[in-house]
């Protein structure tokens, strides 16, 4: 559950009172005669973002065992990740270190250092203070680990921009790691649990998608990148799936046996570009107003299926979908490129893409190793995709005209003023 920030809602005194009350919950604090020595935190050594410091941080990230749970690239996909349980024996994910805005203990270098010193109670995250006491590493080296971890996330938490701009390109990059993608603007969209229709899903694994798009004169490519701890189906995660399913409330979900579900991603558009405000229902349309979708699954990763969804539980594939897909799984991240011709033969059910229009788009993702399939998924609301047109020459006519006029008028004013003055002289 989301812990809100109480700073603005409670006074300092009230917060301390709550703190004292909470401490009565645990026998740990029962003996009030004890005066534990608080840990004194040092302050961060400088130069935390230079290559040498990050190298030291990375070295100790490996040697103190961070990567066992958080993974080689820090996406929470380490070999121990599928075995993790919290103190209540519920399954728990190792944090994805690329999303510092989601860290339970806060996302600054200081927050991360503090968590390394104290651990996170209730979770498998341990304290590493003993390693300093044992002289396995110095305090400064632990700070370097914190700085390395911080460097994995963007400088600022991503902000949603509503319209994905797809620039015009000469050729379409079909491969997810084609170098042509580096020059294209990236857009981030948050995904949240599907809590609208039975069976609901309160703990989605995919927290957002990073989207890029380009188009040529006749085709479009959309690249969707998202972090996923497992290349499902993966037998290493079967036990984890079982523990996830065991936590489900029986009044909302039917009991089911764990299975090796694949990862999935769906890109959704309306059947045609809407002219007014009205759109199909964002959660996969309805029987009367279907949506056009591209569905990709990790069990057939080189293909995508185009079809019409008529509500959350009905998907009808189209015979000649014409959608291609290429996918890469790399250290806890899927990168999938969808491509299709702009025009479509079947304009009644397959969206014809047109330039210069705001085309509604939405995204849905499933992590099979988190027990996600069917209605248990992460969803987004409607956003927009715009295929940008090259700037036509006529756009420059009016600015140039305005500039010539302004300059002429200005010179006239100057000339008149000077004439008048010399006349008076």
């Amino acid at each position: 559950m989301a812990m809100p920030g109480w700073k603005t809602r409670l006074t300092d005194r009230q917060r301390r009172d709550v703190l004292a009350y909470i401490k009565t919950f645990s026998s740990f604090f029962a003996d009030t005669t004890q005066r534990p020595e608080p840990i004194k935190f040092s302050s961060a050594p400088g130069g935390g973002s230079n290559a040498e410091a990050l190298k030291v941080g990375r070295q100790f990230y490996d040697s103190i065992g961070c990567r066992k749970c958080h993974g080689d690239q820090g996406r929470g996909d380490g070999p121990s990740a599928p075995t993790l349980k919290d103190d209540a024996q519920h399954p728990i994910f190792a944090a994805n270190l690329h999303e510092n805005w989601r860290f339970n203990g806060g996302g600054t270098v200081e927050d991360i250092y503090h968590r390394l010193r104290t651990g996170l109670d209730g979770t498998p995250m341990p304290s590493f203070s003993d390693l300093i006491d044992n002289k396995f590493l110095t305090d400064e080296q632990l700070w370097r680990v914190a700085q390395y971890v911080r460097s994995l996330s963007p400088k600022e938490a991503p902000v949603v921009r509503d319209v994905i701009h797809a620039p015009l390109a000469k050729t379409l990059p079909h491969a997810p790691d084609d170098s042509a993608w580096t020059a294209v603007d990236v857009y981030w969209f948050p995904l949240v649990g599907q809590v609208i229709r039975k069976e609901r899903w309160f703990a989605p694994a995919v927290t957002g998608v990073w989207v890029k798009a380009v188009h040529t004169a006749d085709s479009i490519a959309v690249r969707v990148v998202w972090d996923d701890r497992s290349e499902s189906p993966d037998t290493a995660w079967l036990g984890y799936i079982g523990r996830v399913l065991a936590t489900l409330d029986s009044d909302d979900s039917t009991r089911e046996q764990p299975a090796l579900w694949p990862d999935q991603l769906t890109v959704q558009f309306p059947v045609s570009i809407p002219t007014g405000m009205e759109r199909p229902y964002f959660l996969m349309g309805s029987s009367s107003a279907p949506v056009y979708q591209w569905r990709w699954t990790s069990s057939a990763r080189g293909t995508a299926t185009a079809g019409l969804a008529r509500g959350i539980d009905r998907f009808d594939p189209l015979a000649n979908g014409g959608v291609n897909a290429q996918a890469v799984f790399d250290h806890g991240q899927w990168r999938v490129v969808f491509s299709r011709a702009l025009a479509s033969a079947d304009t009644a059910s397959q969206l014809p893409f047109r330039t210069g229009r705001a085309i509604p788009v939405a995204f849905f993702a499933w992590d099979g190793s988190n027990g996600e399939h069917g209605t248990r998924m992460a969803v987004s609301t409607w956003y927009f995709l715009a295929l940008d047109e090259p700037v036509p020459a006529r756009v420059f006519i009016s600015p140039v005209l305005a500039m010539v006029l302004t300059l002429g008028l200005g010179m006239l004013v100057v000339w008149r003023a000077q004439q008048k003055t010399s006349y008076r002289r």
Partner: protein
Amino acid sequence: MRDYIKHPFWQAVGLLLIAYLVIVFVIPLLPGSAIVPKSVVLQYMATVLVGVLIWVSDDEARWTRFKEPLHEVLIQPRLKLVRNGLLAAVTLIVGCLTYSQVKASVAAPPNLRSIHPAPPSQITFRGTTITLVGLENPLRKQGEMAPHVAEGRRIYYQNCVPCHGDHLDGQGHFASGFNPLPANFQDNGTIAQLTESFVFWRIAKGGPGLPREGTPWNSAMPAWEDFLTENEIWSVVLFLYDQTGWKPRTWEVTGSQESGAGGGHE
């Protein structure tokens, strides 16, 4: 320096500068205010400019002195550089402004949504017809309120908290994923303006039950009749008012439908 401070032209420039700094940097710092939108800044600055012009032209001598530097720039041979620089700058600014006006960029279409659309006079709840007009929360006539509120609290925390949040302020951990954002019950523009029957209707029928002006295709509000019983919904309604301290709007004695309609646009 003192000459500049006393000169009406530089005083006018100074006033405009101070006004700009106050509008852009000081106003957002005041409690309860936000960053001033650019269009509003422009309006404020235009008003200040008119005021300043009235002040400098109010006195003949001041007006003459005010014009001096402007005139100097236009004619003085030693100010040729400043003159040409100003001409070039103004021309460039006009060019850029015009370009930003005419260049086509696709923006998200405006989303005109009626926040509190007029409710229907009756709804079908799991097969039974409920008349909304004049409808009161039946739980308010059923003994002690505390158990009903406790039941509503339990249901709220089991179902509503991911979007509407711990604080009932629409800032649950799933809120950022949806547009429109989940309703903020602490705000004086939501349940504080509505009758309990209206809130019951919104909970029972959710996003899909909105009329067209409520943009039902965007709303992530579930139709709770699929999950909760009539009494469970009434207990949540009771909890929302109890927890926020708002009083529901009541039906006028004459029973006019208007009083329950709420109203207002985004």
